[in-house]
């Protein structure tokens, strides 16, 4: 035994005698994780969160979350002797008078953008592959919670510097709070400690941004990961992969090296962006004052859809019984986002109800094999894309020489017309791809090699797929529509009534698929050919 082994042994013995960890470690060091590039998306989100904690902690050492008025005396000459809030002055101080401070600010901001982009990409992967199905519904809901909190956290974060742009964002948030019927005015006065902007809002959102929300994040991420660990990761279908097993590489050493290395890569790329790509140059905007604004005011990308919705809202406001309701703010600012996020959170249950599928799933769907879900996903993305485009309508207008009115009208019509269109087109594409899979399995791949037969006929040689490929294309279970029972044998009407009818209709749409080839079909074809 070498000295090193003896020391390691002693440490392990010391820990194990006090925790009994060896049994758990033995099992979990060998834990198998399936390998696929799309499984790294959630990892990027996790690593970005760690980067946010590290870079954010650094920023708190200098940032002064106060709206008290100070006169700027730092080294950025254009704003010298300008009156501003301590929050803005300390942001300038970090940017210009702390070595590496600007870099850290930029890393923090880039990491926030990557964090949310990774969450959204991860969510799309989970959605389109059906990874949210039983038994992973809770984890899906936790994920939606993390996305929602991430958007709030990001908004609070870029509101902190108290520059002209971020102050304008707060002004809009204030208007949304104030638009809430009955309690809105009171809520805004409580949140802002009086009239807008007051002197207390930034200190308040600061503590939410650096303590409350990160704490909740930590808790939710921990549960999210523990569930992944305990339920074991889903895997893509393929030869040797079943609902009962996990095929992949062991945690130690392959995943530790790969995932650990990947953390450094994500951090490195974020640092590289922070070093070379300037972001949120707050010193150009000046301090916030309610009477000024900069043209082309844009939120960060993950708020763009919300801003786009608000921009395209028709100018509707009602005044009834002495009370004003701003539908032009309420609908795009609160009601539609509420419907979207609630709908997302409930989707696993809605789908299971629609399809009648109550079984456990560990093998992922190929998106084409679930045309309805895939089409619904693309439909939602189309909706988001139109709103996002409208959120940047001023920028698009100046860059592409269009008028704002043109883009606004495109968005107002497009947001209603394009999503259903996207649904239909996507569903057709999925069915076409299924047809292609069927073709491939039954007749093989076109090789482009033309052969003239002795009697003069030309044929193209088709190359048979490998058994593995054939299996991958046909392993999925195709759903059957739920038969509608209007009345039972005794003639008693189905108590579910209209609900049963809707369910039957939806499950029929859900079951619309191209029949996959069966072993019998394949055999018949083979015996016919040869």
């Amino acid at each position, binding site marked *: 035994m070498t000295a090193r082994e003896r020391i390691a042994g002693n440490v392990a013995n010391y820990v194990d005698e006090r925790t009994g960890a060896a049994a758990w470690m033995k099992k979990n060091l060998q834990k198998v994780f399936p390998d696929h590039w799309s499984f790294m998306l959630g990892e990027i989100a996790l690593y970005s969160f760690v980067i946010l904690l590290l870079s954010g902690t650094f920023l708190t050492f200098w940032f002064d979350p106060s709206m008290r008025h100070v006169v700027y005396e730092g080294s950025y000459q254009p704003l010298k002797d300008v009156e501003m809030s301590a929050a803005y002055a300390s942001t300038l101080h970090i940017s210009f008078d702390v*070595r590496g401070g600007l870099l850290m600010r930029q890393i923090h901001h880039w990491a926030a953008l990557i964090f949310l982009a990774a969450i959204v990409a991860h969510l799309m992967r989970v959605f389109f592959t059906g990874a949210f199905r039983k038994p992973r519904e809770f984890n899906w809901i936790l994920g939606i919670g993390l996305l929602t909190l991430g958007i709030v956290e990001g908004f609070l974060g870029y509101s902190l510097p108290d520059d002209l742009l971020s102050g304008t964002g707060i002004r809009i948030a204030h208007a949304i709070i104030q638009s809430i019927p009955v309690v809105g005015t009171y809520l805004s006065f409580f949140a802002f400690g009086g009239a807008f902007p007051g002197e207390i809002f930034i200190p308040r959102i600061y503590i939410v941004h650096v303590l409350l929300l990160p704490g909740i994040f930590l808790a939710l991420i921990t549960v999210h990961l523990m569930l992944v660990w305990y339920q074991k990761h889903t895997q893509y279908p393929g030869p040797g992969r079943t609902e009962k097993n996990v095929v992949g590489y062991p945690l130690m050493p392959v995943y530790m090296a790969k995932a650990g290395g990947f953390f450094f890569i994500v951090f490195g790329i974020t640092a590289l962006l922070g070093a070379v790509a300037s972001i949120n140059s707050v010193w150009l905007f000046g301090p916030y004052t309610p009477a000024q604004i900069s043209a082309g005011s844009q939120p960060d990308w993950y708020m763009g859809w919300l801003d786009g919705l608000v921009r395209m809202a028709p100018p509707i406001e009602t005044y009834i019984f002495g009370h004003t309701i701003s539908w032009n703010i309420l609908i795009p600012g609160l009601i539609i986002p509420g419907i979207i996020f609630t709908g997302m959170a409930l989707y696993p249950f809605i789908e299971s109800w629609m399809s009648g599928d109550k079984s456990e799933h560990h093998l992922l769907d190929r998106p084409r094999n679930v045309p309805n879900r895939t089409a619904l996903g693309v439909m939602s993305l189309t909706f988001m894309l139109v709103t996002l485009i409208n959120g940047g309508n001023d920028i698009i207008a100046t860059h592409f020489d269009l008028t704002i009115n043109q883009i606004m009208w495109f968005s107002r019509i497009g947001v209603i017309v394009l999503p259903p269109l996207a649904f239909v087109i996507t569903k057709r594409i999925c069915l076409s791809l299924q047809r292609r899979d069927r073709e491939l399995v039954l007749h093989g791949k076109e090789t482009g090699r033309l052969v003239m037969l002795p009697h003069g006929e030309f044929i193209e040689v088709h190359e048979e797929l490998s058994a593995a490929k054939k299996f991958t294309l046909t392993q999925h279970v195709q759903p059957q529509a739920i038969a509608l029972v209007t009345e039972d044998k005794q003639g008693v009407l189905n108590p579910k009534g209209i609900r049963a009818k809707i369910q039957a209709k939806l499950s029929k749409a859900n079951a619309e698929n191209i029949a996959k080839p*069966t072993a019998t079909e394949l055999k018949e074809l083979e015996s016919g050919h040869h």
Partner: protein
Amino acid sequence: MSKELEPLADPGLPEHVHRKADIDPIAAKRAERQVAVLFSLSAAGTLLFIYSFFFIKEDLFIFIPVMGDTNAQQLGIGLGIAFGLLFIGFGAVHWAKTLMPDQEVIAYRHTLRSEDSDRGEFIKAAKLGAEEAGLGRRPLIKRSLFAALGLAGIPAVVMLRDLGPLPGNSLNETSWKTGTKLVTDPGDRPIKASDLEVGGVAQVMPELAPGKKRTLEDIAKDAVLLVRLRPIDFQLDAERLSWTHEGIIAFSKICSHMGCAVALYEQTTKHLLCPCHQSTFDVTRAAKVIFGPSARPLPQLAITVDADGYLIAKQPFTEAVGPSFWERKS
């Protein structure tokens, strides 16, 4: 649920193909060297960081294509950290991909559902616990406990009462009173009609009482935009026309939609545009909304001149400025 049609047979895991480094010791040695080089590049990155942090002058700017003039120290620190991290990552991944085992292994899933016997015992234990606590048998305890728990939540809400004052009538009031002088912002100088040319725009504030300071809360309600047109350009009713002075019309600068500053004035079309959500107001028609999400015109401030010819407010705003709220009188 579904009648599974006879599926194709599962051919099982594909056979493992060895990598070059698995069978060729020279290739393995090469991979090892590559990993070491990557780790060394990381160390070089950290050295670049140390050099940049301590030895590059803070005010040294260098020209870099695309990026333009760039602070050399910030760039050196950033690139140093980036390379220091990136190459550790590249090295570790390369190591895992070339030298660590790449044979996929199979692990089996455990059923998540508990054994029936465990479920039965769990239900028994839960029932027994509830039984022993006697919640079912002693409704008085149950009800009083729930009532107490519900009431105990009240302080959590009531304690937040002092987060802010009640709004009162404050949203309906601004600093504009009858006779308040319009002063320039910045500068705080009273202005005359002749100070503004036809086609010109100016931001004004109400004159401050001596010794008083203007707060951001004041600005958020008081900011007013003056636009001077030719009087014949107006399409106003008699009352609104009487609120103008020699072609000068005054509007609240705070957007009636969400409170942004309505700061863009198009001289040719005589439109005011809010850059936040593109609500567009026609100055000639008392800031009527002609495009965008805002549902109300910008409130117009009635102006006139005092004996010395300085512009003053004829009366306070007749409606609340800024975004709508529940109690707003339309």
